[in-house]
């Protein structure tokens, strides 16, 4: 059997197939990256809403809490399916790739919001009190006092989440997005052995993810104090 597989390798790695795999790898990477960047933006908005004390923000606070608590407990596959069929029902004619981008953003917003909130909360209240004493406006104390101290606590876990999410985007193959797993499926359907194709896909995922994970660990060491940034409570 092994000799068959080895004989198959040169047939698998033709220019055409390699380009297919590399393009797919790029899609995989961008799915996670776009999801995390958008997630970071909306996650900030959500956690600012959750951390505010003004009564006007109460409904917003409740909404943010419900969003974060619910979206973190729904499997990515189910979210994908809801958006997939939801787009059909509402009559939007959008591609599977767009649906995957929307679902990754929606899911990662919930997860990143929790990381951002933990980071912002880790800044000592006395810092904000000092800012208030010095007559900083709310915006100034957030931008010049809170954020610079919270940033090193937020960035490493968000990066870690981005690397984790690269692996979750494999599920986007279920709605037909041409990412790495789907490319593996296509090659398998073309007649290449499953063990060879999926083995190659596994290795490609490893090549993408491992350096990023190492870089994340470096970031965590470099910025330090990563211990405080993790959410204390379980999900």
């Amino acid at each position, binding site marked *: 059997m092994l000799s068959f597989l080895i004989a198959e390798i040169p047939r698998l790695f033709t220019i055409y197939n390699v380009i297919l795999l590399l393009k797919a790898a790029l899609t995989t990477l961008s799915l996670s990256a776009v999801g995390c960047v958008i997630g970071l933006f909306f996650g900030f908005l959500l956690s600012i809403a959750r951390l505010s004390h003004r009564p006007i923000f109460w409904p917003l606070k409740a909404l943010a809490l419900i969003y974060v608590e619910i979206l973190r407990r729904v499997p990515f596959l*189910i*979210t994908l399916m809801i958006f997939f069929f939801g787009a059909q029902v509402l009559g939007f004619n959008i591609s599977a790739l767009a649906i995957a981008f929307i679902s990754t953003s929606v899911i990662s917003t919930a997860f990143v919001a929790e990381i951002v909130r933990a980071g912002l909360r880790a800044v000592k209240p006395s810092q904000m009190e000092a800012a208030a004493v010095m007559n900083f406006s709310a915006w100034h104390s957030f931008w010049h006092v809170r954020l610079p101290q919270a940033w090193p606590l937020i960035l490493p876990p968000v990066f870690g989440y981005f690397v984790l999410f690269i692996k*979750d985007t494999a599920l986007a193959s279920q709605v037909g997005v041409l990412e790495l797993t789907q490319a593996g499926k296509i090659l398998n359907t073309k007649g290449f052995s499953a063990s060879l194709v999926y083995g190659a896909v596994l290795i490609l995922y490893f090549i993408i993810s491992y350096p990023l994970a190492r870089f994340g660990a470096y970031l965590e060491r470099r910025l330090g104090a990563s211990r405080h940034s993790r959410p204390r409570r379980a999900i």
Partner: protein
Amino acid sequence: MHYVLHYGQIAPYLPYLIGGMAISLALSVLSFIGGMVLGLFFAVIRNEGHPILSRLVRIYVAFFTNTPQLVQIYVIYFGLPDFGILFSPFAAVLIGMTLNAAAYLTEILRAGLGTVHAQELDAAETLGMNRLQTLRHVTLPHLFRVAMPALTNQYILMTLGTSMASIFGVEELTGRAFNINSTTFRSIEIFTTVAVLYVVVTFIATILLALVGRWAFRARVPVL
């Protein structure tokens, strides 16, 4: 935009869905237990085993945490038959999830083991405990107390991960949702119902695990 939601049409399928939920839970619990056993073993090897074994565990953890669970199960379910090893869908998913969980749990437990103070171990030695007693009375209680939030998190993520068993034809919650979807075509209703079921189950799991952590290990885990 002329779609009317009909939750009534899928109401009769609710017992069927809850049966699927039981299979999902069985998958997650079994793979969590398997992963814990393997993970504890690996964590101890990684911390104080032979350097070569320790290096092997490191490679294992790096490989399994840096590749998607879905593709790992693909290799087990579709790839291994090339070598004459056949698994049923349930077994393939269970093995894949266990191996994957073992890698993540090794990291969590290793971090927990690192927080056991050397003085505590010295004290246990002074009291004349042997290695097994030290493990049972000193290391493990401390380990679980520290690692409980991370373990709960991992369990919840694994429960969500069981949804990919549907791709291999295991009829668990998501698999049954796909079945109902193809008989009734009430896609939105069915998938939102399933999402609610997942939320409920993970909430219950969070609360239960927090209570267990408080009761058994006096872990300081907020219940909600």
